[in-house]
């Protein structure tokens, strides 16, 4: 018989790690989205630049590093759990069926293992694009609004951001629903509320994000 399971060495435990880190990342994207929307304020350019400066100067400049460390840990653990769980599932079904008939699984639930890595690639690109400016041809340190508008002006870049937000939408739609089950917080009485929560959260976050590249493409932000 196997030794009793623990949080970090079992499938259910890793899945809980995935859910907890998923919640951390979800709260982060919610906050990040709200921050971005300041670009639409009447004094958008100044508001966004001040917001950027505020984040960089939080706790005498240490705040942002605490947040970055926390996010890095969350992403790291999320990917660590992803690798362990995915490899285990693949090993459990080396021979598939000739006929498949999925009725409950959704496109969102079945694409989690692909939308996740795509988001990972996007995150790396996004940091080199908007944070360090390495991949941004017109980057000016501290000019957040201007970097955003010039960065998203090339159509392929804007489209890539929009595509990434599409991945995020599917990931969050299943993730927000799934995470409540993983943490044991789901209950038949709140099934409808849980479905509604996943949809509202997803639409809010990805809708808010995607407005920015769309507005840049439409020439509304310049």
């Amino acid at each position, binding site marked *: 018989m196997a030794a009793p399971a623990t949080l970090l060495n079992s*499938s259910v435990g890793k899945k809980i790690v995935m859910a907890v880190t998923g919640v951390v990342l979800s709260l982060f994207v919610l906050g990040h989205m709200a921050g971005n929307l300041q670009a639409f304020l009447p004094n958008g350019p100044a508001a966004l630049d001040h917001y950027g400066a505020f984040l960089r100067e939080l706790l005498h400049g240490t705040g942002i590093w605490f947040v970055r460390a926390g996010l890095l840990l969350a992403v790291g653990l999320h990917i660590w759990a992803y690798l362990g769980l995915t490899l285990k599932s693949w090993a459990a079904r080396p021979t598939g069926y000739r006929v498949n008939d999925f009725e409950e699984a959704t496109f969102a639930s079945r694409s989690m293992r692909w939308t996740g890595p795509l988001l990972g690639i996007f995150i790396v690109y996004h940091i080199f694009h908007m944070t360090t400016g390495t991949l941004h041809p017109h980057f000016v340190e501290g000019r957040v609004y201007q970097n955003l508008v010039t960065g998203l002006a090339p159509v392929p870049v804007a489209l890539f951001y929009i595509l990434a937000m599409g991945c995020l939408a599917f990931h969050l739609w299943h993730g927000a629903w799934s995470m409540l089950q993983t943490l044991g917080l789901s209950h038949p009485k709140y099934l409808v509320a849980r479905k509604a929560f996943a949809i509202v959260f997803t639409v809010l976050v990805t809708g808010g994000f995607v407005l920015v590249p769309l507005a840049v493409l439409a020439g509304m932000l310049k």
Partner: protein
Amino acid sequence: MRLTLTVWRQKDAKSEGKFVTYDAPDISPDMSFLEMLDVVNQRLIEKAEDPIAFDHDCREGICGMCGIVVNGNPHGPRRGTTSCQLHMRSFKDGDAITLEPWRATPFPVLKDLIVDRSSFDRIIMAGGFITVPTGNAPDGNAILVPKDCAERSMDAAACIGCGACAAACPNGSAMLFVAAKISHLALLPQGQPERYDRVLSMVAQMDEEGFGTCTNHGECSRACPKEIRQEFIAQLNRDFLWGSVFSRPKVAGGSGAG
């Protein structure tokens, strides 16, 4: 009715298998699915061919022995129905039906449509029981059980251990089976003393057997002939979280009053 069956044929655990197509004329819609296979097999035997091996025992939906993936659906297209309780009226004349065994590493194919499900037995051995003193049967009403808990525990206890959940799961995960066994006991007072040890041991054994990991697709409950619900997986997760975070090191010895 006349059907075309495409069946997974595999001589034994070590051989490579392949799909073979059979013409099945003169099938009555009143036959059960297994009776239809009996008829097909009788004809194969008369032609001196090897009959299609499939598992079955009670043929009344209670033992959990039968189990065939029919057109991608474990136990066939009807919800809440075992393969043995499925009837040919669920199909149309001229249908093409593909029959496959459960597919999961911990369910190795023994022959044709028969798989070895001892992995489930080992998961039960790891903790799917309660320890009771021997002696006279206790008074039935000595321990109070809330009605709602008794009902839900019975719903979970309806699991017949057929394995359709793991066969249906795109990840090959046995979470629904384990969740049913955990919940059945976790909801009753008699299950409390070993409640958290049980979940940790059964999950460890489930992992060791090589089952996949749950991503909450929900295909398992759809395939389950006993319609075991997703809420039991939430119960397992809740108990696992509690048990793994708050478990204490075991005290050695523990010889009780002796």
